[in-house]
C-alpha cells in the first residue's frame, strides 16, 4: 500500500484550473520529486495534500485513510508534515520552542514537556542548529530558518514529509548541505515528496519524478526517463 495516494485531485481558483485531475502516489521509503514551471500548481497540490485547501474533486489517502478535506492539524497528527515555499517560522519565538511546538502538538499522543525538550535537542543537532541557542527564529539566515522548519516538521514524527522548494534561495554550500539533510531524513525511514527547481539536486535525490504543467501531470518516471522526455524538455524550453 502506498503511503500517499491521490486520485483525480482537482482545484480551481475561479476560472483557473490550478490542479486538474491529478493522480499521484508515494510509496513507503520513496523520495519523489515534483517539478514544473512556475505557476504549474505544485504548491497548490501540496496545499491540497496537507489540508490547507480542500480539493473540489478527487480523493487523497494517507496510509489508506481518506484525508480529503481534513484539517491540517489532523493530517499532521496522522503522520504528514510539510515545509513552506515562503519559509514560515514563528519569528519571535526562540528556535528550540519553534521546534518543540511540533513535538508537543504534532503527534496523536500527549508528549510530556521533558520528552518534547529531549526530542527538540536531538532534532536541533540533526539539522545542525545547536549553535544558535535560544535566538528568535527571525534573526536566523534563510538557510537556518529552513532548517528550523524542517526540524519542526520532523518533531511531529511524520511518515511522509513534503518539502516545498527547500533549496530555493540558498547558496552552493547550503544546497549541498540541504541535499545531505534530505538523504539523512530518508535514512530515518521517512518518505519524502519534494518540489524543487534545481535540476541537479532533484535528479540526484529522487527515485521518481512527477512533472506538472498548467495543473496537469504531463510526465512521470525515473530521473533518467524525465531527463530524456521530449515533452518535459519542451515545457521547460517553452518557458
Amino acid at each position, binding site marked *: 500500500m502506498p503511503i500517499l495516494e491521490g486520485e483525480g485531485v482537482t482545484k480551481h481558483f475561479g476560472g483557473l484550473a490550478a490542479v486538474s485531475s491529478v493522480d499521484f502516489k508515494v510509496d513507503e521509503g520513496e523520495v519523489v520529486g515534483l517539478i514544473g514551471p512556475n505557476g504549474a500548481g505544485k504548491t497548490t497540490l501540496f496545499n491540497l495534500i*496537507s489540508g*490547507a485547501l480542500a480539493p473540489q474533486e478527487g480523493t487523497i489517502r494517507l496510509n489508506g485513510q481518506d484525508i480529503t478535506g481534513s*484539517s*491540517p*492539524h489532523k493530517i*499532521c*497528527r496522522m503522520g504528514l*508534515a*510539510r515545509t*513552506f515555499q515562503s519559509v*514560515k*517560522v*514563528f*519569528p*519571535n*519565538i526562540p528556535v528550540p*520552542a519553534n521546534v*518543540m*511546538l*511540533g513535538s*508537543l*502538538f*504534532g*503527534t496523536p499522543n500527549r508528549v510530556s*514537556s521533558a520528552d518534547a525538550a529531549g526530542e527538540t535537542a536531538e532534532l536541533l543537532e540533526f539539522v545542525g542548529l545547536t549553535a544558535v541557542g535560544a535566538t*528568535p527564529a527571525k534573526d536566523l539566515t534563510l538557510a537556518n530558518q529552513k532548517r528550523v522548519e524542517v526540524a*519542526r*516538521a520532523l*518533531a*511531529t514524527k511524520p511518515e511522509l514529509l513534503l518539502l516545498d522548494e527547500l533549496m530555493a534561495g540558498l547558496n552552493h554550500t547550503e544546497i549541498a548541505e540541504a541535499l545531505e539533510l534530505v538523504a539523512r531524513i530518508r535514512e530515518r525511514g521517512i518518505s519524502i515528496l519534494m518540489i524543487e527547481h534545481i535540476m541537479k539536486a532533484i535528479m540526484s535525490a529522487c527515485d521518481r519524478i512527477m512533472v506538472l504543467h498548467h495543473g496537469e501531470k504531463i510526465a512521470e518516471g525515473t530521473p533518467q526517463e524525465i531527463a530524456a522526455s521530449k515533452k518535459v524538455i519542451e515545457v521547460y524550453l517553452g518557458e
Partner: protein
Amino acid sequence: MPGLFLIVLLLLAALPVYRPGYKVILVSSILMYVILTVSWVIFSGTTGYLSLAPAAFFGVGMYTAAVLGMALPLPVVVVLGGLASSCLAFLVGAVTLRLRGIYFAIFTFGLVEFIKNLLLWWEIERTGTRGRFVVLVDNNTIYYVMLAILVMTVLTAYFIRRSRYGLALQSIGEDEEAAVHAGINVTALKIVTFAISAVFMGAAGAIWATQLTYIDPYIAFNLNYSFMPVLMAIFGGIGQPYGPILGAAVVAYLREILITEFPYQYMLLLGIILLVAILFLPNGLVGLVERARRRAFGGQRANT
C-alpha cells in the same frame, strides 16, 4: 515578580482596614479594569485577534446580577455571571473565530451593539421599563470579591502563559498557518481561550453591577468597557506579563482623578494622554521599565 505580586496583594487585602469608604470603591474600579485588561490579553494579546467584545461579556455579567442577584447568594451570582459570559463567548467564538483579522474585530464590535439593542427592545416590550435595580452589597464585600476575581485572573493568565498552550497561542499570533500545520488545533484552542477569558469579564461585571445598584442596557453594554482594556493593555505594553496590569492600574487611576477634577473634559484629556503615550512609548510602560532596568544594570543588555 511573584514576590512583588504577593506583597501588592497583601497591601490590597489590608486596604479596607486602614482606608475605609470612598477609596475602597475607587480601588475596586481599578481592580475591575485590571481584570478586564488581563483577561483581554489572555486571548487577544497572544493570538493577535482584536476582540472588542469585553463590553458584551462584562454586560452579560451585570445582567446576571440584576436578574438573579435577589434570588441567589452572591458568590453563586458571580460564578454564574462568569459562566454565562463564557457560554456566550464560546458560541461567538465557534461562529466567528474562523474569520481572520479585521472581520473578527468588527463582528465583536457589532455584538456589543446588537446585544444592547436586543435587550433594550426586550425590556421595553416585556417589563415596560428600561432598567433594573441590582441587589445591594456592601463596599468591602464588593472589594474583596473583585480582589478574588483579580487573583484568579492573574493566576490563570500566568499558568496559561507558562504552559504549552501559551506557546501555541503565541504561535497562532505569529503564523496561524504554520501553527495548524504543526498539529495545533487552532480553532479549538482559540475558542476555548476566548471562553476562558470571558469568565473573568462576566464575573467582574456581576459584582460591579451591585455597586452601581441600577443598570440599563446603555450602562451595561457601554463600548468603553471594550475600548478601555485594549488601550490599557497597549499603554502598559504586552511584551511582559506585568505590562497590562500596570497599564490598567495607571490608566484607571488617571481616569478616576480626571473624572473628579475635570468632569467635563476628562475623556478629552485621557484621550490625549493615551495618544501621546502610544506615539512616544512604542512598547508601553513596560518598555520604559525595561529600559530603566537595563540602565541600572549598567550596559549588560539582556539578549532578547
